[in-house]
Each structure stands twice: as C-alpha cells, then as structure tokens.
C-alpha cells in the first residue's frame, strides 16, 4: 500500500508535480471562493484565454512565459474591471469580445510559427509533469504573494463581496478592493496555467468553491471546505492520472466535478448540518 502511495515520488518530476498540484489546488480554491460569491467565473475563463496571447508573444520574443502571461492576464483583468465599473457595454459582452479576441491572437501567432509548437499547446490543456524547478519557484513566490494580500484584505473583501454599496458608504475602498482581487485572480490563473491549462483552469477556480457552497452557509467554513476540496482533489487527481496514464489536468478537473455532484446530492438529502 505504501508502495502505491510512494511510487510516483521516485521521479523528481513527479515530486515537482505534486508540489505544483498542491499549491495550485489550494490557491485556486481560495480565490475561487470569491469568484463564486462575486460571480466572476466568466471573468476567470476570459483572463485564462486572453493570457494565451501573452504566452505566445513571450515565446516569439524569447521572453519568459510567465512574464508574458502575467502582463496580458493582469491587463485583461484590469480592462474587464474598468468596463464593469465604467462602461456602457454589458460585462459578459465585454469579456466575450476581449477574451476570444486575445485568444484568437494567440492562436493566430502560434499558427504562423514554422513548426507547430508542442510547448505552447501544453498551455492549452496543462502539462503538470513538465513543471521545472524554476517553475516551482515562480509558482511558490506568486502564490505566497496572493495569499498574503488575500489575508490582509480578508475583511474588506468579505464586506464588498456581500454588500459593496454599503461598504463603500462606510469608507471601504471598494474600487481598489475589486481591482486588487482581479489582479490576484489574474496571477492565480498564470500560476495555474502550466498545471491545468487554459481551458480547464476555470473549473479549478469555480468547482471546489461551488461544492463547498452546497455544504455550508457560513463564509469561513465555505472558504475552508473549498480549500480542502481543491487541494485534496488536485493531489488525488494527480495520483489517479499517474495510475490511469491519463492527462493530469483533465483528471483533476473530473475529480472535482464528481465531488461537486456528490456535495449537491448531500445537500439535496437535507443535510446542511455543517
């Protein structure tokens, strides 16, 4: 039995993959709690797709993937936030236009490369086994930054998530808070791209928190449960993918989806005791 658990760890790339899965699972499900409560899931999907343009441009110029992705992701997040607060265009329209446009730019640039690039395709569906030592360092540093800011803004984030108008009247800087959250969301997505990929990252943002929401009616418990579900599923999903010889990102997302449906069934049976 212990062999079964420890077997994957004999490979160094698997050790790195487990660290990445644990961190990404924890981070996504933490910020995902706010994504679900503030109904930002479409924004998350949009930022993820748009960042592909940044990855391809970074590749073309020989720059770091993370840097390219982060610049475009943060710019998209702030742009969406600006349209949301100021614009006449409806939010989902703005996201729809921006993210498909930027994603198309990424695909366009990639298709003009002399040889179709496997590295770049890895970002679409994620390739957690390819996470390098320096990737792990970047993931850890960015995650720490996101966690520290989230902890510092815990109360204003909670207040503005629940009641932005009254929070603003009492002097909470709601504009600053929502822009900051969008930047943190963008960084979370960038951190997660290599592990789960552009197409699947939205699921890791939304599903653990949505499952937790089925099980509790208190914010703090929802946050805790979401993290527990996200982190467990990321690690367990990676194990499963190892033994099933399946794609890791897809396995992780499938596992969280199953947990979500179980949570829904638990709630339907009237068990809201948590």
């Amino acid at each position, binding site marked *: 039995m212990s062999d079964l658990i420890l077997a994957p760890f004999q490979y160094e790339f698997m050790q790195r993959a487990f660290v990445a899965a644990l961190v990404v699972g924890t981070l996504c499900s933490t910020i995902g709690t706010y994504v679900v409560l503030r109904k930002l899931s479409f924004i998350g999907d949009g930022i993820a797709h748009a960042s592909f343009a940044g990855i391809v441009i970074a590749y073309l110029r020989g720059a770091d993937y993370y840097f390219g992705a982060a610049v475009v992701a943060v710019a998209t997040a702030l742009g969406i936030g600006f349209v949301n607060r100021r614009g006449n265009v409806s939010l989902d329209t703005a996201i729809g236009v921006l993210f498909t446009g930027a994603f198309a730019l990424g695909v366009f640039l990639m298709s003009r490369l002399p040889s179709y690039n496997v590295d770049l395709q890895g970002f679409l569906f994620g390739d957690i086994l390819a996470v390098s030592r320096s990737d792990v360092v970047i993931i850890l540093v960015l995650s720490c930054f996101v966690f520290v800011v989230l902890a*510092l803004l815990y109360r*204003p984030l909670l207040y503005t998530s*629940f*009641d932005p108008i009254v929070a603003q009247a*009492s*002097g909470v800087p709601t504009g600053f808070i929502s822009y900051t959250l969008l930047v943190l969301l963008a960084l979370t997505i960038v951190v997660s791209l290599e592990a789960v990929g552009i197409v699947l990252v939205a699921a890791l943002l939304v599903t653990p928190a949505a499952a937790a*929401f089925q099980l509790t*009616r208190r914010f703090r418990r929802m946050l805790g449960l979401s993290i527990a579900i996200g982190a467990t599923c990321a690690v367990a999903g990676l194990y499963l993918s190892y033994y099933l010889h399946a794609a890791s990102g897809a396995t992780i997302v499938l596992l969280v989806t199953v947990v979500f449906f179980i949570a829904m069934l638990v709630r339907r049976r009237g068990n809201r005791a948590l």
Partner: protein
Amino acid sequence: MRYERVLALDHLDLVVERGQAVGIVGPNGSGKSTLLKAIAGLVEPSTGSIEVFGSAPHKLRAGTIAYVPQVEAVDWSFPANVYDVVAMGRFPRMHPLVPFSKHDREVVAAALEALRMTDLQGRQISELSGGQQQRTFVARAIAQEPELLLLDEPTTGVDAATEDALLALVRSLVAKGLPIIMTTHDLERAAEWFDRLMVVDRKVLAFGDPQTVLDSGAYAGIREHVHTHGHARVDPDDAGTPA
C-alpha cells in the same frame, strides 16, 4: 449638546447639527434617495457640493458614515447569518491584522440587542422576514459606531413593531448626540421622529421645525402640483440633488 456643523449643502444654508434627527420628505422621484446617496459619497451631486464634517464624503475616515439603503440589493444566498452581517459593521474601523476585540464583540452584541435581533443572531439571512432584514442592516450600521447615520426609508414595508423599535432607537441615538438623516413617507409622525424636516422636490423647498414646515403647506403644494398635472414624476431618483 454640542453644536457643530455636520452637513452643508452648497448654495443652501442647511446645517445639520449633532444630536438632531433630520427627516427628508418628498414625492417619488423628488431626489430624496439620491440626496442621501450623495451625502454617503455614493454618487456625485449633479450640481453644487456636499460637505460632511467639513470635507467631501468620500474623503472621510473609514467608518464615519453608516448608510442603510432602502432596498438591500444583496445576494440573500450569501453564506452569512445575522451575527456575521452585523459584525461586518466593525470592519471599516478595524486594522486588517487585528482580530475582533472584546469591545468589538460587545458593540455587536449591543447592536443586536438594540434591534431585538439577539435571539435571531444565528439565523441565516435568507430566512429573515422583511422587518428582520431591515433590523439586521440597521444593527450593522449601529455596530459601526458611526458619526453620521443615514437611513433611506427604513420604515417602508416593515411591521409596526419594527417601526416602533426604529423610532425608539433613533430617538435614543439622537439623545446620545448622533446626527441622523432619514428619508420617509410618513408625515403623520414626522414630529415624533425628527427635530428638523426637509421637504425636497428636486430642490429643497422647506427646512425647519417639523410642525412649522408641515403647517406651511410646502409639502401639500407638491402634492397639489403632481395631482393637477395628472402624472407622477417618472424619472428615477437621479436629478434631485439640491442646487
């Protein structure tokens, strides 16, 4: 009682003092809700300027103004119970790294008690009646320990018990020196609620002692106007800041 200028509206010599409850009355669309939002710093006045404690509302220290909107446009499925919501009132004044102190918890408990919500503090917000929701949000405003309290038609759509509780609360807070500005439809009891009454219809038509203002017929004049022209004002509360 200290006499200090709490609120000043440009071009108008309207002064709200500490320890006064000011009622704002006016027909639908008269801009009374917008006036309250402008005082709260949520909207820019279309003309003129508003000063609260001598500065623009949005430049005040966090926690100075507490605002209770007419309709709480919150997501009622939000994972929070009554206690969680009232405790949020403490957030604007708290340092991010300092946990709830004994004082914070006492203030929250006192606010729940003042609004008779102590027994319901564990109840999910989605399971509250209209009156209980209103009391929860007023309790949150009280828990903030604000220096100015703004209430937008707190008595609309609530039961008589809640209305009486709110009246008693307003008078007791005013007695402690808190200035309160509140919009209302209820002219009958204006003299019970308020120390000053303001009649608004896109601009301030009258301001002063409630009974004097009511006797002056300023409000009856508006009603007559609306009636004889045969239509209610259809534009939403967006034009009403007094100029």
